C-alpha cells in the first residue's frame, strides 16, 4: 500500500491534530443498492422506451475496438440517428462499451467508471477477446471472461466487429431494454460480493485512484 494511503495523524492549520484514514475517508465504500423499478408498470415501460431510444455511451476506448467508434459517429454509419451519443463523463452515460480485451490495469479503471455510472446502466462486450480471451487466451495480463467482473448485457463477437455489427448490437440492446431485461445494474448490486471477490482476485493492487484515471 502506498504511504499516503496509510492511517496517520495529521496536524491541521489551526493546530488541532486529527486522525486520517484515507481509505475510509476518501473513498466511498458503500455497496450499490438495488434500485426498484417505477411503481407502475406503464411508467416503467415508458421510461424503458426512453432509455432504449437514448443510449449515451461512455467515451472510454478500453481496447482496439475504439477504432471503430470513430466511423460510427461519422457520415457512413452515423449512430446519432438511432439516439446513440457519446458522453465524455461516466456520470452522464448509460452504456459502457468494453471495446476489446481488458488488461488488469484497465479493468480497474473500467470498474471505477462503471460504478460511477447511474442506474440503470448497460454493458456491451465488444470483440471475441471480451468473450473468451480471443487472440489473447494465454496472455498473463488480460481477463478472459468479462461477465465475471461486470454484468454484461450483450456481446458482439468478431475481431474486430464491423460498425454494422455494432449498430445491430445497439438494436438488440434496445429490444432488451424495452423488454425490461437489461437489469445489469441491479444484478451487480445483488451479487456485489461475488463480483468484488472476482475483481479482487485478479487486481492485486487494490487502491483506487483519486478519481477516474
Amino acid at each position, binding site marked *: 500500500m502506498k504511504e499516503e494511503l496509510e492511517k496517520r495523524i495529521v496536524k491541521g492549520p489551526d493546530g488541532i491534530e486529527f486522525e486520517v484514514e484515507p481509505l475510509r475517508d476518501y473513498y466511498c465504500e458503500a455497496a450499490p443498492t438495488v434500485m426498484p423499478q417505477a411503481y407502475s408498470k406503464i411508467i416503467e415501460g415508458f421510461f424503458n422506451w426512453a432509455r432504449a431510444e437514448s443510449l449515451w455511451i461512455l467515451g472510454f476506448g*478500453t481496447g482496439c475496438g475504439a477504432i471503430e467508434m470513430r466511423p460510427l459517429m*461519422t457520415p457512413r454509419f452515423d449512430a446519432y440517428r438511432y439516439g446513440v451519443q457519446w458522453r465524455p463523463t461516466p456520470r452522464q452515460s448509460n452504456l459502457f462499451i468494453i471495446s476489446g480485451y481488458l488488461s488488469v490495469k484497465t479493468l480497474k479503471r473500467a470498474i471505477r467508471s462503471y460504478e460511477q455510472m447511474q442506474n440503470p446502466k448497460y454493458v456491451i462486450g465488444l470483440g471475441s477477446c471480451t468473450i473468451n480471451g480471443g487472440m*489473447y487466451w494465454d496472455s498473463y495480463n488480460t481477463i478472459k471472461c468479462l461477465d465475471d467482473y461486470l454484468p454484461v448485457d450483450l456481446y458482439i463477437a468478431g475481431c474486430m466487429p464491423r460498425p454494422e455489427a455494432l449498430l445491430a448490437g445497439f438494436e438488440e440492446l434496445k429490444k432488451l431494454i424495452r423488454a425490461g431485461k437489461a437489469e445489469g445494474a441491479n444484478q451487480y448490486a445483488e451479487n456485489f460480493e461475488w463480483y468484488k471477490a472476482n475483481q479482487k482476485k485478479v487486481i492485486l493492487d487494490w487502491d483506487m*485512484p483519486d478519481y477516474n484515471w
Partner: protein
Amino acid sequence: MAPFKPFQDDRSQYPEKRADGTLDIDLSSGKYLKLWQGPQHPGITGNMSVELTVCGDEVVEGKTHVGYLHRGFEKLMERRTFIQCFPIVCRICVPEPDFNEYCYAAAVEELAGIKVPEKANWIRTLILEMGRINSYLMYLGGQAGAFGMGVIGQWTTYVRDLMLDRFEELTGARIYHMFIMPGGVRDGLPDGFEARMEETLQEIESTLQDVYEAMFCNAIYKKRAVGVGYIDPALLDSYGVTGPTARAAGVAKDVRRDQPYLVYPELDFEPVVATESDIYARSDVRRRDLLVSIDLIRQILVRMPKAGPVMAPLPNVLHWKIPRGETYVRGECSRGEYGYYLVTDGSGYPRRVNVRGPSYTHAMALLERFIVNVNIADVAGLMVSLHTYPPEIER
C-alpha cells in the same frame, strides 16, 4: 516592471527546482492541482493517461502513464510458431496495422533466407501507403478535434471509410488485414481495382482541399497552433524523435529515402520538410505527406508488374525452423520509425521479438518534457500533434 505576458515570456525556470534537481512542488500548499487526463478522457490519444500538476492554467509537471493496453505480445509470440505469430502481430497497432505485418514478415524472411517475388513487394508498398493515408486522415481529424473543430473529423473519417472499402476489396477486412505474410502477400489485385482506387484518391484529394481551406487557413487554428509546442531540433536525436515530428523540425530524415526498403528506390518522391517545429508545422507536414502518399499510390498502380507470383514457396509452416540469428527491420510508418528486432535460436519459435514503435519515445520522454509550461488547453493538441498510439508503447 515588465509587462505581464502569460505564456509568452520564458517560463523554463518555473517551477523552481530543489537542490537535488526535483521540482519544488508542494501539493498541500493549495497552489497546485493534480489533474489526471485519461484513460477515460476524450482528449487523450487512445487508452493512456497523463498526470498533470497544474498551477493556474499552466502545467508545471507532466507524467505519462501507459500499460492499459498491455497484452504481452512479445511473450505470446515466444510460444507461437513463426506462422502463428503472423495473425497476431497486426493487433499491436490498430490504426496502421500493416507495418507490423511487413516488419515481422521482412525480419522472418531475412533470417530464413526467403526471396520475396517482385510483385509481392509492389503490393506490400501499396498496402503500406494505403495504411499511411488511413492513419494520417485519422490524425487530421484528431488534431482539429483537439482544438474543438469536430467537422474536420467528420470529413476525414468519411474519406477514410472509402479507403477502408479499398482495403476490404483487396484484403477482405477493414481494420486487421492480415495480408502481408512471411513469403509474400496473400493475393493479387482484384479486377478494376485501379479505377476504383483512382476515384477514392480523387475524393480524398478534394476533401483535403476542403480541410486545407477550413482548417489550415483558419485564423483561430493558426492562433492555437502556430508557435505552440516547439521542439528544439537539437534535441531530436537524444529523444529519439523520428518521422513527421522530426521532419517538421527541419530534419529531412525519412527511412523510405535513407534506407530504402521494398520498391521505394524505384519510386519518385521527396520527403516533406518544414522548419517551424510547432503544432501547425507538424500538422502541415502530415497533410503534405498525405498528398505524397496519394502520388505514390498512383505511381505504384501504374508501374506494378501485371503478372507473376505473389507468394514465395515456404517450407512446411507447421515444422518451420529458422536458424539462429538476429536482425532488425525498420520502415517509415505514419508516426516515425517502426521496427522489429527478431532473435531466433534454431527452434520453431522466435526467441525474442521486440517491437519499436515510434510512440515509445514520443509519448514518454518527449511528451513529458514538452508538456511542461504549457497551457492546459493546449495539452490535448500537443499530445495529438506528436501522433502517438499507446498500443505500440506497451504492446
